[in-house]
């Protein structure tokens, strides 16, 4: 009998727990440890942030589902890792602290045979002075509560604009090393469309601010893509969209300080600049959770498990951009020291960024960190679950399921406006996610037939279909597993 502990119930942790439970006989125990009592479909936060969807529509409580499906659940947060146990506890364990109910504040040693760390990112607002969701007129849409606040802020501003106020709206990245440009891109297009629907577009100046060197980088070093019968670069496509919608842009900007209605940033020229705004939505930098790890004698072994995020089977040897290779990227998401520990989704430490690293003239690094969107987060979770299942069933380590982001496709369906007949979406797919310059030397490391962009109403329907399909899947309704990650 094996016990698998899954830390986190986001896209990755929940996918791993569901697949493990479906495929493993009941004598094996699957336990999820997560501080948030709800599952949330994060991609739809964009619509919560423009008031077109209630946050209740994107979440559901985990406890009843886990009870029904015989998945153990502890509403707690992992604090530290003991992969060898300690003097009193022979088995490896995670020290977790309950965050709710009678046990709130109590700590428990949760032992395991296999551990899946799917704790995603820490939203590191502290890394940018003054960037606090809902303060200084700056908002976030990274969680449903943040998105609710963002809508309150935007709604107030729209009302003021209806009374004749001219406004400046700033949307993008709130740190020199932020990632998730895709989410900010969706939000700026949705906000712009909402302003039109409320008939106040002419009262607003809408500006994109980002640590990207070029538009359309998205933390993926940009891409060459097919668009209709043409082949174009992603920056040309995004430029076309922004110009068409009268959205201005500031690039190579490392936002370092937020004051009430003012964003201060350094650009690649090394200049310190600032931009005023009446409403901003800025994505913070993502970091690891700062977990500590100890061996059985309680010596600190954090560096064996973490490098910010969790160390897995990637090649972390520092090397220049020109020498980066797809082979650097992990395939099984297994920790090399403790082979019963895995980290899918955003929780694993990437070997390096995907976008070319750039420094300002003052030496400040200003470039996007690598994104790990929902699709790869789900796929890597399933790979980890399948390898654990095989290992348990075969009685010996089995790592036949592999999936490198250098050999995996992803789709980014970016909403560009909500409405069954008036909505729009920018659908972009890339294959592979991490460019493979050896395989595809002439097309910027990607396969052109599988890397394409489309703009139109169908994109909105697609994003809406994904919303319903993935919530259905997450609720583990009949035949949920037929829906791919």
């Amino acid at each position, binding site marked *: 009998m094996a016990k698998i502990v899954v830390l986190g119930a986001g896209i990755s942790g929940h996918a791993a727990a569901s697949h493990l439970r479906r495929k493993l006989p009941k004598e094996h125990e699957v336990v999820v440890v997560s501080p948030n009592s709800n599952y949330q479909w994060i991609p739809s936060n964009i619509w919560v942030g423009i008031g077109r969807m209630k946050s209740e529509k994107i979440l559901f409580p985990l406890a009843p589902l886990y009870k029904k499906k015989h998945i153990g659940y502890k509403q707690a947060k992992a604090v530290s890792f003991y992969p060898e146990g300690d003097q009193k506890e022979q088995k490896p364990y995670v020290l977790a602290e309950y965050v709710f109910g009678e046990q709130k504040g109590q700590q428990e040693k949760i032992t395991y045979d296999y551990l899946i760390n799917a704790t995603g990112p820490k939203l590191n607002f502290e890394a940018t002075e003054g960037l606090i969701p809902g303060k200084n007129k700056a908002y976030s849409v990274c969680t449903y509560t943040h998105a609710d606040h963002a809508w309150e802020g935007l709604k107030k501003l729209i009302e003021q604009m209806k009374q004749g106020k001219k406004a400046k709206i700033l949307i993008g990245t709130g740190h020199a090393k932020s990632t998730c440009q895709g989410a900010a891109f969706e939000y700026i297009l949705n906000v712009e469309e909402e302003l039109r629907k409320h008939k106040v577009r002419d009262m607003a100046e809408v500006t994109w601010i980002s640590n990207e060197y070029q538009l359309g980088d998205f933390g993926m070093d940009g891409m060459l893509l097919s668009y209709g019968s043409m082949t174009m670069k992603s920056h040309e496509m995004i*430029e*076309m*969209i922004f*110009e*068409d*919608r*009268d959205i201005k842009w500031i690039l190579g900007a490392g936002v370092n300080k937020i004051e009430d209605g003012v964003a201060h940033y350094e650009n690649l020229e090394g200049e310190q600049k600032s931009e005023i705004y009446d409403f901003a939505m800025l994505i913070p930098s993502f970091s690891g959770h700062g977990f500590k790890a100890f061996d059985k004698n309680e010596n600190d072994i954090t560096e064996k498990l973490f490098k910010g995020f969790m160390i897995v089977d990637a090649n972390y040897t520092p090397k220049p951009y020109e020498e980066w290779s*797809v*082979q650097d*990227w992990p*395939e099984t998401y297994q920790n090399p020291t403790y082979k019963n520990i895995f980290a899918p989704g955003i929780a694993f430490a990437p070997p390096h960024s995907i976008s070319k690293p750039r420094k300002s003239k003052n030496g400040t690094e200003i470039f996007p960190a690598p994104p790990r969107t929902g*699709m790869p987060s789900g*796929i890597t979770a399933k*790979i980890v679950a399948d390898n654990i299942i095989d290992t348990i069933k075969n009685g010996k380590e089995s790592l036949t399921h*592999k*999936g*490198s982001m*250098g*050999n*995996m*496709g*992803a*789709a980014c*369906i970016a909403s560009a406006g909500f409405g069954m*007949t*008036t909505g*729009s979406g920018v*659908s972009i*797919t890339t*294959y592979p996610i991490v460019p*493979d310059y*050896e*395989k595809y030397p002439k097309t910027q490391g990607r396969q052109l037939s*599988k890397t*394409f962009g*489309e*703009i*139109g*109403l*169908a*994109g909105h*329907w*697609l994003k809406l*279909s994904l919303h319903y399909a993935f919530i259905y899947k997450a609720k583990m309704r009949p035949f949920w597993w037929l829906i*791919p*990650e």
Partner: protein
Amino acid sequence: MTQRISKYQRFKMMNPIIQFFKYIYLSIKIMLIVAGGHGSTRKVN
């Protein structure tokens, strides 16, 4: 504002009938790319 998307292009982008077929086409294409498999890169070379 620079009109970068022509009226005809915009009509095609927003026409529900054209977009319905596009929706079917994109759903299949995306499914093939995403669910079409993933794997190792290390054994290739």
